[in-house]
């Protein structure tokens, strides 16, 4: 029995390898460490009385509360990563906050269905047979496509705000 299972597992791995044959690194480690965190913004006043905000771990999150999602990609290889494209969904029970997506050096695109991506100005939806511009609250996925290669040890990040419904 055990033998049989192991063989099956091996076959599965081989099948997986055949689908994506070009693996530059060892199969168990890629070139990018991808991290996604949910944080909240906190107002702070420094010794000079200047007000600013900083990101802190989530405090209580209730309906209407705003959460800042940040995804970071770190290149841990000794070679650059190219065509880096990061996707982060707008989670269920949350609504994307208009114009809140940022990502230095990235083209930012949105999707309402998870399949078709376009810039905010170009994204459309079909409603009752008519095509109209998608509204920010309809975005379900954000994609950052980084224009430049991610150098070894470099970090890229994308961020957006969303409100708990």
């Amino acid at each position, binding site marked *: 029995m055990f033998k049989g299972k192991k063989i099956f597992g091996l076959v599965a791995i081989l099948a*997986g390898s055949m689908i*994506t044959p*070009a*693996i*530059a*690194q060892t*199969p*168990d*480690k*890629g*070139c*990018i*460490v*991808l*991290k*996604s965190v*949910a944080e909240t*913004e906190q107002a702070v006043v420094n010794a000079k009385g200047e007000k600013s*905000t900083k990101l802190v*771990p*989530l*405090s*209580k*999150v*209730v*309906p*209407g509360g*705003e*959460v800042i*999602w940040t*995804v*970071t*990609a770190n290149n*841990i*290889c000794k*070679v650059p*990563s*190219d*065509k*880096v*494209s*990061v*996707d*982060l*969904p707008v*989670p269920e*029970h*949350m*609504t994307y*906050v*208009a*114009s*809140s997506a*940022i990502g230095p050096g990235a083209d930012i695109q949105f999707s309402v269905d998870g399949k078709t991506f376009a810039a905010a100005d170009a994204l459309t939806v079909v409603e009752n047979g008519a095509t109209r511009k998608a509204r920010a*609250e309809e975005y379900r996925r954000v994609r950052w496509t980084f224009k430049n290669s*991610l150098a070894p040890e470099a970090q890229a990040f994308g961020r957006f*705000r969303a*409100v*708990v*419904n």
Partner: protein
Amino acid sequence: MKSIKQQLRRARLAVVALGLIGATPSAFAAGTDFGTDITNTASVNYSVSGVPQTAINSSPTGNSIPGTPGVPTTFKVDKKIIFVAEETNNAATVTSPGLTQVVTVFRVSNTSNGAQDYGLAADNIQPPAVIFGRTDDFDMSNFTYHISGAACSTATLTTPTFNSEPAVTHIEQLGEDACVYVFVRSDTPVSPTAANGLASTIRLKVTATTDASNGVTAEVETLALDNPAVVDVVFADAGVLNGNTVEDGISLAFDQYLVGTLTVTKTAAVISDGFSAAGQAKAIPGAILEYTITIQNNGLVTSGAALTELVPANTTYVANSTTLNGAAVSDVAGTMPYVSGGAISSPAAAAGVINPGSTAAEKAVVRFRVTIN
């Protein structure tokens, strides 16, 4: 160096501006249920040396293993407690001395993001300002709480009738965006503590309590940082009226008991003066005046209602001119019968019984005539 600094400053300003734009859309009044897990996983596609790599999914601490599901970044939606207790009809409840189990009605509405228990406790603690224009004169006792079986809508405030609902200690799991009517019953002290026209203001204190504590254990706001794995508690109840404190998980509402009152009005009309045309009689010596005394009951049905009335000075009673609700009342000791006090009643009611109400069928009307000396 300077230009980089400037750029940084510009970037920071941009972030602040974005924060200001952030609107708060709300699909539902109370929002996503507390306890709901919000999860999110990012993914990255990339190439190395022109060769596409297997996508990597994110984890909260960083994942670099391709082709695995990653670990979703997750937090639980916390509990936002919003509720309000209200008096329903903006009027006092009529009682009478010694009357027990007198019913007042409140509504408790839950707009928290999930079902919530509420403890109920009534007492004689007073609001910061008098209600219904009456000061508090006496205390009610033996408060009991009953949840109405009547339908409740948060949109429309009604005052349902007590229908022998059983006594309870708390409201069990009041649903999101739902409300219930709560009957508070209490006993009126005997006379003279409770007397005609005196009022008692009572308070209903509704406290958000933890589930399965039978209304005993108050919810406590979580003061520490969010624990993404558990449901924390945030108080968001308003507190603008009646000495309520904002965001304390308590809502106070006040109602009033009023010992039934009789209002008495007395009018006089000149019937004839012996000279003027009908309807134009003047109050000159020798003219006949008719007094009309109307007694209206604004409280509960009475027993033993009696009227004592004097014949005004400088007038002479017209013998056998007294009527009650249009029926003749015999003179007593040769004068107006109510001089020595006599029972009055609503038409068709037993002696001493005045039914509450303002119609002719409920008011007692006494008339008698005098001659101006």
